[in-house]
């Protein structure tokens, strides 16, 4: 795995085509956290969720797409993580700029039971500052983004991220 550091605006023209294992982290609830942009309203699977319904507990918002290779790698980890968190936190998937048919097939194959929303134009992901897929944003109970986890995550890395919010 390649590590990618956060690059400043002067270096924004350059990317590293690597799978990223490092957290681009802000301190939980610290001064560099920011309010999460609104979630998409189109529900692909599961129940409807919005930011208001997530308030009161940490939430993980995972952006993915059916065409994304690393997302396939991450999918079983998300399923296992979701089955283990109970009511302690919420997990929400957001399918970014994707064919709806392919996305539905991906969800079925992944056996995800958590809510998955659809961002067909990519506007929501862009508002979140998406720079690659998959990316998971960690929200504190007040709806602020406190961590960004680029690249495919594992159950352990997701639990770790969640632990830093508690």
């Amino acid at each position, binding site marked *: 795995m390649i590590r990618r550091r956060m*690059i400043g605006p002067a270096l924004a*023209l*350059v990317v590293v085509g690597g*799978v990223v294992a490092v957290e681009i982290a802000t301190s939980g609830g610290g001064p560099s956290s920011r309010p999460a942009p609104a979630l998409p309203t189109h529900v692909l699977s599961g129940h409807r969720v919005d930011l208001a319904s997530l308030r009161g507990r940490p939430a993980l918002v995972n952006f993915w797409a059916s065409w994304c290779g690393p997302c396939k790698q991450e999918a079983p980890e998300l399923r296992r993580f979701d089955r283990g968190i109970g009511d302690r936190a919420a997990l929400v998937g957001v399918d970014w700029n994707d064919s709806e048919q392919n996305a539905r097939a991906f969800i079925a194959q992944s056996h995800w039971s958590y809510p998955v929303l659809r961002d067909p134009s990519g506007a929501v992901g862009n508002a979140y500052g998406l720079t690659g*897929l998959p990316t998971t944003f960690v929200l504190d109970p007040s709806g602020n983004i406190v961590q960004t986890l680029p690249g495919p995550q594992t159950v352990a890395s997701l639990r770790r991220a969640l632990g830093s919010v508690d």
Partner: protein
Amino acid sequence: MASRMRIVTAALAVLGAAAIAGCGGSDSATSASPKFAGAAASPPKPAPPLKLDDSLGNPVNITDYRGKAVLVTFIYTHCPDVCPIIVGNLHTAQQQLGSEADKLQIVAVSVDPKGDTPKTVKAFLKDHQMTGRMEYLIGSRPALERTWKAWGIGTQVPKSNPDLVEHSAEILGISGSGKITTLYPANFKPEQIVHDVPLLASS
């Protein structure tokens, strides 16, 4: 970090002495210049040659697109992060352009002569709903290296993972008269493209 700086330098060298104004910063251009949403080159500079085959073996020459806005991006099909984001946002921009989409030609140039084959490109275009909506140019390493050099594109295979390619990721906007006129970062917004395409096409 030093290697990244070298790549940035290479990427911007294509514009030579032309200055790049910040987003919406075409103020530094002449007063008659259109206001672009992307960073404006001041002055615009003739685009370097770009003649390669697409994934079907058809020859493509950027000069064939005079009169249109041309967006040139350098990507590879198994890029795990930013390339799909670029193409996804280009797809959205095309859709938002509606009938004006015929003023735009998107040209992707491979930065991976080994991994980008007719088969992988076909699958990539299908996955991203871009079949028939953009050109994806591939070629031999020497042919692609000549193109990268002409366009000032830095590429580098990291020793820690030779399956990946580090590369410049800016998108260059070419005017209808064939000049590099605008520059967009990898995290551009589709709305910037929608705004600039008619201006680029008529410039």
